[in-house]
């Protein structure tokens, strides 16, 4: 009986190992379908690699509190979704937080409940007060600055940048009022965008404007890859949402308010599209018809993510191989010749061969197999079978 038991053990082990061999060398593994879709999504349709935001509030004085609150709300959203301050140009024409008429000093609220302070201690205003002018705005967009303009005041976008331009204030048909003294026309905006396109300063641009007769401002745009949305059509007014009785002014505009209703629930991983955002626009709530201009925009709005413009979600390309860095590449690094100061010192003249630009040791890249491909060596299987049979064999000898 004992012998039979041993044979049974041997047989079952052999069976197990043959099963393992069979499964090892004949099975194929695929990623499940959902992973493939995610990977497809990574190679997404948008070809941008960085995000910029230009947020402009054009009106000053205390009773235009809501315009500053609008812009600061969008600033908060954009920052929350990952765009760093270095990539945001924030232009506020007036400082209502420290206005003596502000009952709640050093705060800006966009809601009468005053739960969220937009001003806080972590905002960076690039153009403030009287610096917000039409000239500065157009210089910013076109990149034609005076030489002493600091970097924080420049829009350093490139042809792989998605730019969000948000403007709010008082407007009319084909114009927008800046600071009560001047105005920018829709033709100026269109030409500025065309200069941006010519200089390849954007990959795609979303122009969002919350003023009266907003849609007229983007009616003259003619550059490609621009998507525009405004709070009202030509001939319509845009309205404020509600007023805070303690502050005494309206705190937010309707269009921005209903945009925020959707945007506040957007996260970095959110797959919500701009079409979804635009579908949430309800004329009965906004009290004006939002205008959307997408004829210049190539991609289908169903495929454009909100985070393509409002956030900083970068596309990552997965590679399965690494790069081998060798010690020195003859073609890349020029030999730096140290020129001698005087003809007498020939010894000083040396060819500098030791370039420290490439690290000295080679990198060995490991190839990572995406599929399960552990090769259990047949020697191992043989060895384990030998071990088991050795145990059984020995037990017969010794006992």
């Amino acid at each position: 009986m004992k012998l039979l038991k041993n044979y049974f053990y041997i047989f079952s082990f052999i069976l197990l190992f043959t099963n393992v061999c069979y499964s090892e060398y004949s099975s194929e593994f695929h990623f499940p379908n959902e992973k493939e879709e995610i990977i497809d999504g990574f190679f997404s349709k948008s070809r941008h690699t960085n995000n910029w935001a230009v947020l402009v509030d054009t009106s000053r004085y205390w009773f235009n509190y809501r315009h500053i609150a609008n812009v600061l709300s969008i600033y908060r959203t954009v920052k929350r979704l990952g765009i760093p301050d270095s990539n945001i140009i924030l232009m506020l024409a007036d400082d209502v937080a420290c206005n003596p008429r502000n009952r709640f000093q050093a705060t800006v609220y966009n809601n009468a409940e005053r739960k969220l302070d937009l001003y806080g201690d972590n905002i960076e205003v690039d153009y403030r007060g009287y610096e917000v002018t039409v000239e500065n705005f157009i210089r910013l967009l076109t990149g034609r600055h005076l030489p002493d303009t600091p970097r924080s005041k420049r829009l350093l976008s490139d042809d792989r940048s998605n730019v969000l331009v948000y403007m709010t204030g008082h407007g009319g048909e084909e114009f927008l009022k800046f600071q009560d003294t001047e105005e920018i026309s829709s033709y100026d905006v269109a030409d500025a965008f065309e200069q941006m396109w010519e200089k390849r300063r954007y990959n795609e641009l979303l122009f969002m404007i919350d003023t009266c007769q907003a849609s007229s401002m983007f009616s003259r745009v003619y550059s490609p890859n621009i998507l525009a949305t405004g709070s009202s059509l030509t001939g319509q007014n845009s309205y404020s949402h509600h007023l805070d009785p303690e502050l005494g002014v309206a705190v937010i505009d309707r269009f921005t308010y209903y945009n925020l209703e959707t945007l506040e629930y957007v996260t970095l991983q959110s797959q919500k599209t701009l079409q979804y955002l635009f579908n949430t626009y309800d004329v009965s709530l906004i009290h004006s018809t939002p205008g959307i201009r997408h004829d210049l925009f190539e991609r289908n709005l169903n495929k454009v993510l909100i985070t393509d413009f409002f956030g900083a979600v970068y596309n990552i390309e997965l590679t399965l191989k690494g790069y081998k860095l060798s010690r020195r590449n003859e073609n890349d690094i020029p030999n730096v010749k140290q020129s001698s100061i005087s003809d007498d010192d020939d010894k000083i003249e040396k060819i500098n061969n030791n370039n420290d630009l490439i690290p000295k040791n080679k990198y060995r890249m490991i190839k990572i197999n995406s599929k399960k491909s552990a090769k259990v060596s047949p020697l191992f299987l043989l060895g384990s079978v030998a071990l088991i049979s050795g145990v059984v064999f020995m037990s017969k000898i010794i006992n």
Partner: protein
Amino acid sequence: MKQNLLPPLIKKKYDTLAFQKFLKISIALLLISRLFILNFTKIPDVLGQRFELTTPITSLKKLKEGLYLFQHGLDPYEGGLYTQAPLLLFLYHILSYLPKIFESLLYTTCDGLIAYYIYHISIYRKKNQLSLYWVKSAPENKFSTDTENAVIDSDNDSEQELKVPPQKLGIKKNNKLFKDISSQRPVDILLNPLLVVTIYLVNPFTILSCLSKSTIIFNNLAYVLFFFYKFQENINLSMFFAALGSYLSFYSFVIVGPCLLFLIENKNDSFKKKKIIAEAIGLYIVYVASLLGVSYLLLGSFRFLKAFYGVVLSISDLTPNIGHYWYFFTEIFEHFRIFFLWVFQLHIIIFVVPSILKFKEQPLFLTLVVTSLISQLKTYPSVGDVALYMIFIPMYQELFKYMTYPFYTLNFFLYSISFEPLMYDLWIWQGTGNANFLFIINLIFNIAQILLLTDTIHAFLKREHERHYPEFRGKELAWK
């Protein structure tokens, strides 16, 4: 001197058929519930993160990470994440091809197999219990008291006594068995193997350790198999499982010593003794070498030696566990580290030789002592190790009446078990405590285990002394 010896007075109180059936059903239910909980609930994921149940060398999560690296063609020991034996990797590699239920089945089967072999070990213990003769006291010995418990002096009657049901002998039903230490021979309960198995399966330490899917269960299985084959005097298989156990967790090598002792126990021929010792040691070394060689063939390098055994020996991973080395090695200066490492490693194995010398006639008790010592003192203990030596304690039920402070020990256990997760929570999750809180409870848990061990040893020695020297029976010891 057979006339001077008495067989033990055994009473089969709980050995009814109904009780056996109850035990069998409960064993089946316990195993099925393990399978159910392992497979269908999220409890293994929750328990797999507990520090008491899993250590860096037994954690399933680390094994899965090592498995991922292995399956993608990388060295599983890269990065110091995976610090367990390589053959486990192969086992889980096979498991990853099978449907999900097989993993739960594996753990349940391991527990079931351990239960099965415990059954056989306790059958051996039962025979052992019956074979221990008591020295008969001289009639003029004033300490021998004949109580109303029917104490039978002649040898013939006592053998029949076991087959005769208790009622016929006139033994009263309401005997206070546990308090009866003043008779000629104490009345013991015959060991019920199924009861030992049920106690093992119902022990919360084993349940938690099994449900947390910690890999200590393979070590425990190798241990139990080793003991089983040792008691069957199968040198070959016992050495194989000892090799497997010491391959899976380093400190199991100390049990080879007691094993050798046991194997040479009843042999009279000194040449045969030497032959057996040589055979056993040779086999052990060959099996260990072949296991390491097979692991080399699996992985292609000997890196696992440093990555696994190096971690166990040099305590490089200082994740909190229920032992006391992690705390100590977080606070010592680097200058002294090697010194203390040597001292602690010595401390672990140094108690084995004296206990072998003391308990050389009783190999099963020796296994209890040695297993308990290394379970408490090993560098990464977990609750599964405690479950291992608790297998043997119910086999010595007759010692319970000789223990001097069982209630005290129980309280130590309850206190430490209830505070340990709490202090960990306070330290790690709430941030209101620090490592000292947890360390103190670790120390108390160790004290509880040591108290249990020393009390058991004390009870055993006392009983053995009473067995051999009848004039000491019934007397309380005058010294503490």
